[in-house]
């Protein structure tokens, strides 16, 4: 029954995809009027003017671009012309580094906040004010203090992935069942052993949910951050191709961003399954 449901869902998915591509293809077939012009003038004009081709790329154009990129993902022809694999690599490295730094701060502080009602209350106003600040709003301060655009984007990633992890860790640690803590107390378990063997596994699913949300946000923010700081990265690639007016490249980049985000999310979902427990 489940396999047949999955099978039927796959058929519907494929049908929807084909319908979408079909409509896209028809919509971008090109209906523009072709003006009469001299061959010299026509050479200066694009295909839109000379053949009535749609300015919006169709599925075939994007498919051709896709093939082009997949064939040479790692070429490097100077600052403004690098393979998509390289650009993606830069983005992943920035997200990875910024995210890792955020983990280093969020998990210990989350533990502290979750364990101590005093620290919780004391830090609460700061967290409440800092949390709603758009991560990109930090950019000027980061650029001024760090004086390096690439490191600044790492900082922005750090600060945006900090909050969900911090709050989820604090919540997970703070809501460990009283009876499990009582078990640890009656067994005279040392504080370190209690933290590692009772509180951490009990809070792990909540912590991992926070980490998953954080990774999602980090991947959203890196594109915007790279559009701002420029130079390298998938976000910069999108902006650069917009300046080149290569919409086929932009659409292809969107697809890659979406796929990568999905892979990251799936990775965290399977990590979450590892630490999940059933009560």
């Amino acid at each position, binding site marked *: 029954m489940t396999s047949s449901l999955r099978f039927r869902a796959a058929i519907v998915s494929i049908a929807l995809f084909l319908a979408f591509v079909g409509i896209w293809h028809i919509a971008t077939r090109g209906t523009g009027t072709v003006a009469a012009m001299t061959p010299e003038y026509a050479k200066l004009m694009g295909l839109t003017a000379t053949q009535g081709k749609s300015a919006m790329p169709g599925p075939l154009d994007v498919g051709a671009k896709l093939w082009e990129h997949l064939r040479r993902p790692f070429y490097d022809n100077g600052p403004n012309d690098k393979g998509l694999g390289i650009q993606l690599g830069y983005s992943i490295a920035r997200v990875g580094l910024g995210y890792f730094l955020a983990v280093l701060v969020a998990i210990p502080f989350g533990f502290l906040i979750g364990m101590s009602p005093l620290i919780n209350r004391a830090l609460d106003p700061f967290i409440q004010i800092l949390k709603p600040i758009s991560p990109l709003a930090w950019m000027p301060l980061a650029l001024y203090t760090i004086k390096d655009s690439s490191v600044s984007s790492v900082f922005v990633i750090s600060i945006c992935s900090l909050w969900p992890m911090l709050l989820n860790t604090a919540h997970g640690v703070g809501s460990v*069942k009283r*009876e*499990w803590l*009582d*078990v640890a*107390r*009656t*067994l*005279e*378990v040392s504080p370190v*052993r209690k933290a590692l*063997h*009772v509180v951490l*596994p*009990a809070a*792990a699913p909540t912590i991992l949910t926070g980490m998953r949300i954080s990774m999602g946000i980090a991947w959203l923010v890196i594109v915007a951050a790279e559009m701002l700081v420029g130079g390298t990265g998938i976000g910069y690639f999108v902006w650069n191709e917009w300046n080149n007016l290569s919409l086929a490249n932009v659409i292809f980049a969107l697809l890659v961003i979406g796929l990568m985000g999905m892979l990251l999310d799936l990775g965290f979902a399977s990590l979450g399954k590892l*630490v999940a*427990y*059933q*009560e």
Partner: protein
Amino acid sequence: MKPFVFVEQLRKMYPGARAEGPLCVFDGVSFTIDKGEFVCLIGHSGCGKSTILNIVAGLDAATSGRVIVDATEVRGPSLDRGVVFQGHALLPWLSARKNVAFAVRSRWPRWTEEQVARHAQKYLDMVHLTGSEQKKPAELSGGMKQRVGIARAFAIQPKMLLLDEPFGALDALTRGVIQDELLQICAATRQTVLMITHDVDEAILLADRILLMSNGPRAGIAEVVENLLPRGRTRQTIHRDPHYYPLRNHLLDFLVTRSKRYRNGAGSEAPRTTAHEPAQEAAQ
């Protein structure tokens, strides 16, 4: 013989609503337990019997009064007092054996992995869980979970055992089976036990002495009933003992009617000790 456990003048107050002032849950609770004795504490919900057990365990603090176990005043939880919790309190991410091993490791930190595993297995075998050691608590039935809880408490070889309505959540058949097991284990280990229950039959089967608590607020121990049914009681034969029904009626009468009578005055009176005489009961 000097008693093993002294509970002296325990009182628990909770800060209540401002108009009513602090709420006194129980007051003047005193009793003793001899080494190797099985004592049950019976009372209606809200009389604070779980709180008393938690105070003896060291998990909760009394407003006044003190508890002395083995000539040492209780100041906090200790490996000397094993606790079986009401809601089994197993760590759900660990298998049955690892739950027991966690306790064993706490008791003997220097043991090798193999020693810990062997010791844990011995106690799992004791509660008839052989073959289910690798299962997580979610895969075990309610009765099996509570068995793991019992194995965990016994595995640390505590000086006394505290059971907080351990069978409350189980169906009657499972409860009977585990009661029998507990009875056997206690008889074999000569364990000193304090158990909370609201099941009269369970108390008669298991306990050597039954402490009856009056209703709260200001609850107290109203009567102490000696169980004169000889040790070696079993579930199959206990109801044929001529002393069984008089004792059972006595306890039920207390819960149904007399427990209310002591209200608001329990602390001042000394509990009446009944060395339960069936003849006396019949004469009433």
